[in-house]
């Protein structure tokens, strides 16, 4: 579904990514792990179009998207969440999630200024869809009118997932969805991610430091260290790989 081929990215002398190769298979959860500074977020930024890679290509559903702008990728069905929550803080939960539907809507400026007619029909249709498909699904109906700033961290993360879901994504990139969460919140989020995969068949690419969660929910794992891909395979294979153990624990004495 999402293919990364021989990807290289450098900032001046720093080689952030060196020859990354993997595929996020359709309908599966692929994990990307690695110590801090391994290049995980850089990889996400290349996939979502913020960084242009020096070499290599990113293709999505057989289509080369390496040089496409972020907003065009979004229209194709690439959605993501950010490590440090990137919600729109001046808006309510509902408006944030509605923004996920932006590319699907057609209303132009003229229709928007008049509202009644085409714009209203479209807005109400979006509202209904979001209420039924996202807000109900993520169990956030009690906070739909709350401004983002009033919500605790865990709920903000969930709203951000909701916004990504409103895009009806084909591929969902989750950058540390459970960072800083306690055990219950982590379990909740893991359950939501699995529900998304099951109900919508979304292909998911996940960066996370919580090894328990990664090992539990991913079907395939890619390990990065200092910009290099040191291993990839099933959770069982990866956790036994000597290179991975060395990267995480240091060389055996």
């Amino acid at each position, binding site marked *: 579904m999402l293919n990364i081929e021989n990807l290289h990215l450098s900032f001046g002398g720093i080689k952030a990514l060196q020859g990354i190769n993997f595929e996020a298979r359709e309908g599966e959860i692929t994990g990307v792990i690695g110590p801090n500074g391994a290049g995980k977020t850089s990889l996400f930024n290349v996939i*979502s*179009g*913020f960084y242009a890679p020096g070499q290599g290509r990113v293709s999505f559903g057989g289509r080369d998207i390496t040089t496409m*702008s*972020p*907003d*065009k990728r*979004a*229209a194709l069905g690439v*959605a*993501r969440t*950010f490590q440090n929550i*990137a*919600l*729109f*803080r*001046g*808006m309510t939960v509902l*408006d944030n999630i*509605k*923004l*996920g*539907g*932006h*590319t699907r*809507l057609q*209303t*132009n*400026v003229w*229709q*928007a*200024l*008049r*509202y009644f007619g085409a*714009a*209203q029909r*479209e*807005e*109400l249709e979006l*509202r*209904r869809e979001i*209420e039924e498909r996202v807000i109900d699904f993520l169990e956030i109906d009690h906070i739909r009118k709350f401004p983002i700033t009033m919500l605790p961290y865990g709920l903000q993360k969930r709203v951000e997932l909701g*916004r990504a879901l409103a*895009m009806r994504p084909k591929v969902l990139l989750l950058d540390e969805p459970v960072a800083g969460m306690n055990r219950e919140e982590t379990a909740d989020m893991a359950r939501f991610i699995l529900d998304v995969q099951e109900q919508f068949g979304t292909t998911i690419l996940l960066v996370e430091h919580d090894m328990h969660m990664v090992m539990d929910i991913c079907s395939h794992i890619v390990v990065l260290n200092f910009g290099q891909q040191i291993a990839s395979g099933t959770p069982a294979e990866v956790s036994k790989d000597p290179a991975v153990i060395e990267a995480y624990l240091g060389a055996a004495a």
Partner: protein
Amino acid sequence: MINANLKNSYAADERVLNNTYKQMFVYGMMIVLALFTFFANDYMILIASQMGILLIAVVGINILTGYTGLVSLGHGAFVAIGAYSVTIFANLAEGIIPAGVMPFFAMPFAVALAALIGVLVGLPSLRVKGLYLAVATLAANFIVIFLIEEDLFQPWTGGMVGLTTHAPNFFGWVLDTKREMFGMIAVIGFLALLAAQNLIRTRIGRAFIAIRDRDYSAEILGISLLRYKLTSFALSAAYCGLAGALLAYFFARILPEQFELTLSLNLVAALIIGGMGRSMGPVFGVIIVVLVPELIKVLFSSAVGGSASAAQFRAPLQEIAFGLLLVLFLLKEPLGINQIVDRILRAANRWPFARG
């Protein structure tokens, strides 16, 4: 008292006036405005018309600065473009377009021209943000005034001495009194405010707010920064152009000095005082911006009498009071009067169970 906040359709929840208090407030204001049009004295009509014209421009600034987060200190230029183009268009098209339908051509022309130039002035916003953008837009104001005063264009613009304007003529109904004119301004102002409100509750408005709050996140959701920033500039310029056209109709004469930097700054100041990115912010803002200098004028002349030597202190005093007011709002209530009103409405909604 909490009343009638129960909704049983999404349509009811998406309305602009989605609770009884807002409805009461707005419908009440409409009745007051209608009575005002017929019964206010000429002086009050004059003040209110100025408010109405300024309101339309500030609604435009609200779209740009309040919702999209792009600061412009040059929007006086678009008011000038609106005012001059509506007048020059009428001068040039005289005899070609019948006088009775002239406003239907001249006003859209003025608005469209302002929007077009707005896109041009908005181009730097794709590269620079914040203060840098404010300075870049500042140039627009000076360039437009310079061009108006330029000898080359003097046959059309009248240069420093300005232009005599036309009273609008709708199918033979000439609005030649200030009272009739106020009626027109009030109706157009209300529609302009409603249109902005409609914009904000659809995808376009949400995209603007998204760009203001976090531009990279907006891009991830498929919002093209190029397109929406320029759309925002065009819309705000169009609103200012409309305000300019009405200003030209309202005053018998337009002069370049009416559109200088002070106007641009006043527009932004009104928005800050009223509440940036809030629906009623422009309304409260212009009321204060127009009323405070008038109040000072009245108080001052009643305090010192009509002596000429004292009168020369009035203008600086007005400016000082205005500056103080602005600083006070930035310190004490950066969200503006709209926030204060919201708080009162919220308290009313919860009374008698809570006061906050």
